């Protein structure tokens, strides 16, 4: 297909195993066709507007803009267009056996690479396999508790380029870690196809938060897929703010008895954005638990799609699964689609879902008005209150404050007259504030 041929994949070079892997995927991709909105998984999406020929696999050129550290970290990885350009790993953790590495630099393929994707491939994951420049491997040894967060900072840039970031987190038995993956980008018309695989071993605990704060012209087709082992706990959350069309497929496969997953997301779309979420809570073992809470707001002409599935397979007796999607529609012209699906193949389970779409509650506005709160301030309070429980659940470290500020910026973008409003700015160009510490550091390209 156009620029994404096996020849282009071969040209990327690198370690032998990686080149072979890419080539095999590129050949698979050559015989694949891109999905269409006629396919259920792509219904309501803007996939028909994607012209792959407008992009080429981007060389990892240019400079990345990365946020500085605000909290103590176990490790920081800087990734530019999918290629790892810097790793700071705390020496104490390194000594204990925590591995944070560039996949491209490994002598052989890490076991966890492909562990998630191979169970649920699509044209874009194949494309990622074919063109990944490398990627981040985080491997936490058995029994290790990583108290400080591990942060993967992505910068994607280059108009007309496409990038294929890959992150693999392998949690050993009874280990614990917090991982934050953050995507930022300038106002380039760029295609980014990130794949993140989370392998949570037996009794391990992983908190993962993916934040996308892309520039306004980015096209994103992302996958985060986790497999959760016996008695393990996964909390995989997402924040979506930027992009022109930004899709996130978020999946958790509960493979071991007693496994549990929690997925929380906050999203806010305005102008002509479309934020598109597809979730899967896939229970394949008894006594498994999953919870999902997705909360979003749409404004201007923006669209959001939430399509989620809870699948309780026959072994999932005594499972408990919930799924909640709530959408605030803040202006005429904005729209939200919500499709919470259930497929239940066992009887001794509890499963429920709820979804709602609506404007700001007039009763709440009225109540605040009777207490002397002007409507614009009241609206702001209500929107923040709407997001608060989700923010509270997904954030860790200094994240909650940053996130509130990011939502505030987005909310205030159109409402410059408000006294609390920060100067109005364009979506995507306002970045997450760095809470006054650290500042931004520029890194040269690798």
């Amino acid at each position, binding site marked *: 297909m156009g620029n994404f041929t096996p020849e282009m994949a071969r040209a990327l070079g690198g370690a032998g195993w990686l080149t072979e892997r890419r080539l095999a995927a590129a050949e698979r991709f050559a015989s694949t066709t891109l999905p269409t909105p006629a396919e259920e998984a792509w219904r309501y999406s803007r996939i028909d507007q994607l012209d792959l020929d407008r992009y080429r696999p981007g060389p990892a050129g240019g400079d990345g803009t990365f946020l500085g550290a605000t909290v103590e970290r176990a490790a920081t990885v800087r990734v530019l267009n999918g290629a790892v350009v810097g790793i700071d790993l705390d020496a104490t953790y390194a000594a204990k056996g925590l591995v944070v590495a560039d996949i491209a630099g490994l002598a052989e393929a890490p076991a966890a690479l492909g562990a998630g994707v191979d169970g649920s491939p699509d044209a874009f994951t194949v494309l990622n396999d074919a063109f990944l420049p490398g990627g981040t491997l985080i491997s936490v040894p058995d029994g290790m508790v990583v108290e400080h967060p591990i942060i993967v900072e992505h910068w994607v840039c280059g108009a007309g380029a496409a990038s294929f970031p890959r992150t693999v987190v392998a949690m050993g038995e009874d280990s614990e870690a917090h991982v934050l993956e953050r995507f930022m980008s300038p106002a380039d018309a760029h295609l980014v196809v990130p794949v993140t695989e989370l392998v949570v071993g037996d009794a391990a605990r992983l908190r993962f938060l993916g934040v996308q704060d892309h520039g306004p012209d980015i096209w994103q087709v992302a996958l985060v897929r986790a497999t959760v082992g016996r008695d393990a706990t996964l909390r995989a959350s997402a924040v979506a703010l930027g992009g022109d069309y930004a899709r996130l497929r978020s999946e958790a496969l509960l493979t071991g008895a007693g496994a549990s997953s929690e997925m929380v997301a906050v999203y806010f779309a305005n102008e002509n954005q479309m934020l598109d979420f597809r979730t899967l809570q896939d229970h394949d073992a008894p006594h498994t638990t999953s919870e999902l809470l997705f909360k979003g707001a749409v404004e201007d002409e923006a669209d959001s799609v939430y399509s989620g599935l809870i699948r309780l397979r026959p072994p999932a007796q005594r499972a408990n699964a919930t799924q909640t999607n709530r959408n605030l529609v803040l202006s005429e012209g904005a*729209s939200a*689609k919500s499709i919470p*699906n259930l497929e239940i193949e066992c*009887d001794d389970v*509890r499963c429920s879902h709820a979804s709602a779409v609506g404007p700001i509650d007039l009763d709440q506005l009225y109540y605040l008005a009777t207490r002397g709160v002007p409507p614009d301030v009241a609206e702001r309070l209500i929107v923040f209150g709407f997001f608060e429980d989700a923010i509270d659940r997904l954030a860790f470290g200094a994240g909650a404050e940053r996130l509130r500020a990011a939502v505030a910026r987005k909310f205030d973008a159109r409402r410059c007259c408000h006294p609390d409003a920060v100067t109005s700015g364009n979506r995507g160009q306002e970045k997450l504030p760095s809470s006054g510490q650290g500042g931004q550091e520029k890194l040269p390209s690798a």
Partner: protein
Amino acid sequence: MATTELDLGRYKLGWSDPEEYVFKPRKGLNEDIVNEMSWMKGEPDWMRRFRLRALSLFERKPMLEWFAKNMPTIDFENVYYYIKPTSGQVNDWDMLPESVKATYEKLGIPEAERKFLAGVTAQYESEVVYHKNRDELAEQGVLFADMDTAVREWPDLVKPYFGSVIPPNDNKFAALNSAVWSGGSFIYVPPNTHVEMPLQAYFRINAENMGQFERTLIIVDEGSSVHYVEGCSAPIYTGDSLHSAVVEIIAKPGATVRYSTIQNWSPNVYNLVTKRAKAEAEATVSWVDGNLGSKLTMKYPSVYLTGPKAHGEVLSVAYAGAGQHQDAGAKMIHAAPETTSLIESKSISKDGGRTTYRGLVRVDPGCSKTKSHVRCDALILDEDSRSDTYPYMEIEEQDARIGHEATVSKVGEDQLFYLMSRGLTEQQATAMIVNGFIEPVVKTLPMEYAIELSRLIELSMEGAVG
């Protein structure tokens, strides 16, 4: 379409004076057959042309991938293969399977109705019984007849509405129905008229009630109300393996229409039905839909809310036993401001049965102050059974409040324990809990149906229904 071999043997029962027609059943679906059918029925030319147009649409429309996937075994050739020329309708009580007769016995259905239900022509008995009712209707100016009669007698009333809510090109099965429909009901209620008693399909005179391709049209004029009951809860035995009805309802401003149906086709039937209502300003349409029988049912009654303040409701109960798949749901299309809708679905699956709720709530741009609430509850009674929920919500309007809730669970152990500690057997306790579960829908039915439905669910739970 691979092969279209339609057995038209059934239609020999469709005319009022059978001995006049020595109609040899001919296989195949083509223009000649449709022309002949139309001529035999003495239809006006516009209906004949309507059928022919539908036939060409049916032939042109591809079988949807989605249908094909959900019905791997439905192959037109096979479906018709199973129809024997004589088995369309049972002509003798003794020809009924024992299991069906036993169920009638348990339900306590009177002999006359039993015969009717069995497809034995029992029109004359019911005609006598309900004669008084019909006189009252005539006084009110209510028209109630089978569709074939209506096309002949009141073409001016039928023509503007026939196919106006469900055009023949709506889907492949609607096209098939439009081409070869026969039987079904026609109701017209004049303005400001309230029909007190529910109108029931089997009160009709001279009707083919349980046609394979029924066609029902209900027009309720301004400010009027009617409750129509189609089918009933007792098992309907039929030799046909494909049932594909079309039901259209037009509720004029301020009208209220309730359409209740409980299908209990025998387990060889594919039941693919298109049901749609148009609710104009301040009108209310509610579908009460029970699905107990058939091998596969795909039925999504819908209401197009086209006038301000219109209201739509779908209340449905589905029960899927061994080998059954009840794929039912509802669609609410909010196409006017201040419209409201409610969907309540209760499903029960047992012995490997599968229930699916598939629904859509759509709010078009500009339809402000709309409200919709969807609630789906599913009970799974054993580990072989399965339940799916696919609720679609497409909201293109800011000022719309849309909510959806669903739960899936088994019968609560605490509830079972409580009832069993009061001396009920586990089976009785389960049946009681299940009846409580479907109560919100059952209570909207006329009493005799409600009792029958409750009893029937209990029988199904015992595995006593054939």
